[in-house]
């Protein structure tokens, strides 16, 4: 379980996350939406322990992401914003490194599922954005993580690739907590079971996603206008 309790994150005088609280349980697919600079990436980085909260508590399975870092990271998969990858390595070299670190012995299954076998021997810098995104996702999926944090997982993908990723997220969420951020509101309608809307560091909405086509977008626009 992920638990954020009155979490604040400030960079100098600028508040990036202001008083955020929420809980996430296994089986939930949480769509995390907000305009650019709303605090989505900062919140994800706080959950991974890459950033330290200025105030408040974060617990992952009752553990602290800063002090119990290794224990938490061994069952957490993370796709960071902009998907930073070492371009000078081949996909094979990179994924075998990640699978060694995360003790994943069934990397072939992930490769097959994400359809990256055809670029397996290629250098990452030679890949298209879509393939790079799949490699980043494959790395996040290594080690059978209980928690998946995906920062804009469909960014730069064409509609067919987006569908592949969306189906994968749905499949993965059965035994996991999946939190994914996105700009594409229709993805929330397709994939998420729960919706978090954030703006200027504050959580504006936390609840079951509204039903009906365009309802997420309508709610989003209404809340952003208000805030």
């Amino acid at each position, binding site marked *: 379980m992920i638990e954020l309790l009155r979490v604040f994150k400030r*960079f100098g005088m600028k508040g990036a996350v202001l008083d955020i609280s929420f809980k996430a349980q296994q089986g939930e697919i949480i769509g995390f939406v907000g305009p650019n600079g709303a605090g989505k990436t900062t919140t994800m*980085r706080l959950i*991974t*322990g*890459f*950033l*330290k909260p200025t105030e408040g508590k974060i617990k992952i399975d009752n553990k602290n992401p*800063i002090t119990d*870092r*290794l224990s938490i*990271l*061994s069952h*957490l998969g*993370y796709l*960071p914003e*902009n998907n*930073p*990858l*070492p371009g*000078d*390595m081949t996909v094979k*070299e990179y994924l075998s*490194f*990640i699978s*060694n*670190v*995360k003790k994943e012995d069934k990397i072939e299954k992930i490769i097959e599922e994400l359809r990256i076998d055809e670029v397996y021997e290629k250098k990452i810098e030679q890949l298209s954005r879509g393939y790079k995104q799949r490699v980043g996702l494959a*790395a996040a999926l290594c*080690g059978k993580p209980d928690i998946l944090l995906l920062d804009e997982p469909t960014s730069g993908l064409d509609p067919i690739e987006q569908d592949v990723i969306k189906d994968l997220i749905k499949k993965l969420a059965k035994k996991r907590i999946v939190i994914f951020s996105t700009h594409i509101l229709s993805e929330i309608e397709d994939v998420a079971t729960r919706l978090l809307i954030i703006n200027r560091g504050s959580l504006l909405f936390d609840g079951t996603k509204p039903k009906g086509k365009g309802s997420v977008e309508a709610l989003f626009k209404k809340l952003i206008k208000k805030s």
Partner: protein
Amino acid sequence: MKALYKKELMQLLNSPVGYSVPIVFALFLGYLFIKDVFIIGSASLKPFFSIAPWLLFVLVPALSMRSISEEKRANTIEVLLTLPLSEGTIVLAKLLSLFTLIAITLGLTLSVPLVLGLISSLYVPEIIIGYGGLLLLSLLYLSFSLYISARVSNQIASFAISVIILFLVTTLSSDFLANILPKSVQDILILGSPLLHLDNFVKGVVDFRSLSYFILLIVIFFKFTVTELQKRI
């Protein structure tokens, strides 16, 4: 740790700096030695051991400048720090992979004593201890340069800062300045001089104080680098 060490070494060996700088270093040292043998007529390893440290303070930062600063610039540090690897493991793997490359580079210069052995008699333990001293000095320079690389996000700045500081430390404590600085200041600087401690090894002596000096400073800079990575803003 093994996986990260392997990845780091592979990345180093695949980079232009990783394979060109060690070859240039070995060729240059070999040239200097051959010049001494055939032009001056001196067949000794002393010039080799006295020049090597001056080249190492350029070679080591050139190899290590990318190590952490580039990870920060490209933000791959976020991937690394969100893997189940401790900061100590990350620094150790980076340090050992760089050290392996330096050891290979110094291994390439073994042609110097081999050639010397053909034309004169050599005392092998002295050469082994001398090389051991160079390896310790390299590890100290590496440990320091890696710390600078962790502090700076620009690899060129990381290289420049490391070279300047290592140059100052090496120069200030060398004979070069012995006549310029007051004797009391010079005495203190010489005590902390990496060259003075290396000199004991070059003479074929494993001095406990020199060994402790290298180990202590290597551990201190290693710890500083780990602390730098542990900082969470």
